[in-house]
């Protein structure tokens, strides 16, 4: 054998960086309606290709087409529209509030509203989500109190979490919303355990796990897939691929595989990719996966293809690492506008009604905000007490913590 050439390290880079013009020519987007809809008890090996395509329902003309269409009534669609608009308005207000110093931190959903809002609709009462910080649509669409959410964001006197948790790390058992961890991926495997517990208990409830594209690299993602695959846990394994993990493009986490959905193939888990900016497609795929879980057919992996339009969080400025206009170039469009167009095409909505709805929703959000602020904001008004800080570490306070509380004089 001849002397080998020197090796070199391959370090993936996004197609464009600030200064360049946005380029998504590498994102292959199939026609709406093109991907078949298999039976829920299909052999996973027979649908491997679904991990490499994108299930889409809404076409360019705003029509719902293909085998995944036709599942939601006009009323339901309009309600979905309102959920997304509410989430967007909520985000906008909280971003301003953060800039005003009313809280320390905020994370928005801009461009990703369809995913959590539509998914929520596929669940039944008692089901449990293990969300990340970018699925507040599950709460909004589930009817959780916006005032409570804001009180949490403000860490004020009515904060349901007593000021202990970072803003947006909501928790509500009743609303099927597990306490969010700031640690990435840890809850993915907990969702599998929760689902296993439901199966062990011969219950009918299922779980939904949530993770971002970047976080699939974490080890707990693997643990979740291993356990879900082995015990056929009734869980929907969601991956929200919004193209970015803070400043890191999805190619770093994804590596040589074409997609994140492909990760499920090595486990014999049915793995689908869906247009995350298409409310109807998200709902259809979620319903399919939820049905599989409910019928004890085991886990499903879903990759939602979307784009993080805003900054990662209020601590981030994306113009440092990606072209400013990149989000405008995103080929899957905006979920709110796409659903709006669909409703208009269907003749059940109009620009005017949209404007009106926007104004109404803003009023509701502002009213909620006023109320929440009356209970305080992070640095002003009512707030949780130092005693709250010592409570709840254990069900019953052990002597050493009692001593410490006493020392603190509270």
């Amino acid at each position: 054998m001849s002397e080998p050439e020197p090796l070199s390290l391959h370090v993936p880079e996004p197609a464009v960086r600030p200064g360049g013009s946005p380029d998504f020519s590498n994102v292959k987007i199939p026609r709406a309606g093109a991907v078949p809809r298999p039976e829920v008890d299909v052999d996973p090996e027979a649908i491997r290709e679904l991990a490499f395509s994108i299930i889409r329902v809404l076409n360019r003309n705003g029509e719902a087409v293909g085998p995944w269409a036709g599942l939601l009534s006009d009323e339901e669609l309009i309600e979905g529209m309102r959920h997304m608009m509410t989430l967007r308005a909520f985000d906008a207000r909280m971003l301003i509030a953060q800039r005003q110093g009313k809280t320390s931190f905020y994370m928005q959903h801009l461009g990703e509203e369809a995913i959590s809002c539509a998914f929520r609709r596929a669940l039944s009462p008692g089901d449990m989500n293990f969300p990340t910080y970018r699925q507040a649509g599950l709460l909004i669409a589930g009817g959780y109190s916006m005032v409570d959410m804001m009180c949490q964001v403000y860490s004020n006197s009515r904060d349901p979490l007593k000021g202990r948790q970072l803003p947006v790390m909501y928790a509500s058992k009743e609303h099927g919303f597990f306490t969010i961890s700031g640690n990435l991926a840890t809850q993915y495997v907990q969702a599998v355990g929760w689902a296993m517990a439901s199966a062990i208990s011969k219950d009918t409830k299922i779980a939904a796990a949530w993770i971002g594209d970047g976080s699939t690299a974490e080890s707990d993602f693997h643990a979740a897939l291993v356990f879900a695959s082995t015990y056929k846990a009734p869980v929907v394994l969601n991956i929200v691929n919004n193209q970015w993990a803070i400043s890191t493009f999805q190619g770093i986490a994804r590596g040589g595989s074409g997609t994140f959905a492909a990760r499920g193939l090595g486990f014999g888990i049915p793995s689908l990719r869906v247009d995350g900016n298409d409310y109807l497609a998200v709902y259809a795929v979620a319903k399919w996966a939820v049905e599989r879980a409910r019928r004890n057919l085991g886990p499903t992996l879903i990759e939602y293809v979307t784009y993080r339009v805003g900054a990662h969080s209020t601590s981030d400025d994306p113009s440092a690492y990606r072209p400013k206009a990149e989000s405008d170039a995103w080929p899957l469009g905006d979920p709110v506008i796409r659903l709006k167009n669909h409703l208009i095409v269907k003749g059940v909505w109009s620009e005017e009604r949209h404007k009106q709805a926007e104004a109404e929703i803003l009023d509701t959000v502002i009213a909620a905000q006023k109320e929440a602020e009356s209970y305080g904001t992070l640095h002003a008004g009512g707030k949780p007490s130092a005693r709250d800080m010592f409570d709840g570490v254990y069900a019953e306070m052990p002597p050493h913590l009692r001593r410490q509380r006493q020392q603190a004089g509270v």
Partner: protein
Amino acid sequence: MTMIEAIRDAMDVMMARDEKVVVFGEDVGYFGGVFRCTAGLQQKYGRTRCFDTPISESGIVGTAIGMATYGLRPCVEIQFADYMYPAYDQIVSEAARLRYRSNGEFTCPLVIRMPTGGGIFGGQTHSQSPEALFTHVAGLKTVVPSNPYDAKGLLIAAIEDPDPVIFLEPKRLYNGPFDGHHDRPIIPWSKHELGDVPSGHFTLPLGKASVVRTGSAVTVLAYGTMVYVAQAAAAESGIDAEIIDLRTLIPLDLETIVASVRKTGRCVVVHEATLTSGYGAELAALVQESCFFHLEAPITRVTGWDTPYPHAQEWDYFPGPARVGRALVEAVEA
């Protein structure tokens, strides 16, 4: 009853009483665990209450947390404490903090059992005592039984506890009390009064130490295997030591400790884990703080050395009765 049988019996009793109790881990199901602590439970309670898992400690603890928040009471096994590190994130960042961060919306009644300690020529990966890595974490309780009776009562209490409990089983005590004289045969638990374990349900409170030897010259704080080493050291050195078996490290029975040290005026802490930042440091810090004006000599620590646990030099590493005895003499003569 051996300590293995006592531990198994505790799980058996709880699985029979409460169908929410589930048991799983590596080799835990069909085979019944590499130390046989779960032998027979799958046969008795079925494969969905006691089962084998993939080799993934983070998966075991991660799924167990999910189950606990659903409402089950998982009691899981990590095959050796040395292998708990892959699960450490789940334990620290999740199990320990769920109740707090969710203000009680979600809670985590979970027991994580793991064999600890050396003395079996297990080398660096079958001998560790990582208790200090748990005691530093707010939200966890840490238990170390030293005999079959305590093991059963404490394990039942742990399973019934509403919060996560780390249950450390000194593997060198599984079959009988081991006092560090590795060249002598051990007495099996069947010939020891603490091997006489009542059948059925009973608990010992988490947070109560036990004075296993009363004495007036020096207080020895120990747990697990070191309880017997300390007893041997006291007998052999002739020092009238008061030996306290802590039984639970968090919550700690500081009252019993303080009462004893105020009486004896001297204190020696013994553990098998490495010295630096071991739990002995916390004990020494607390004792000097609480008993400063009663202390007549510095508190000393006899522990494993600050090296990985060696294979061939096991008995040079292990804090045996000779080393502990010397420390007792020095404490009294100081």
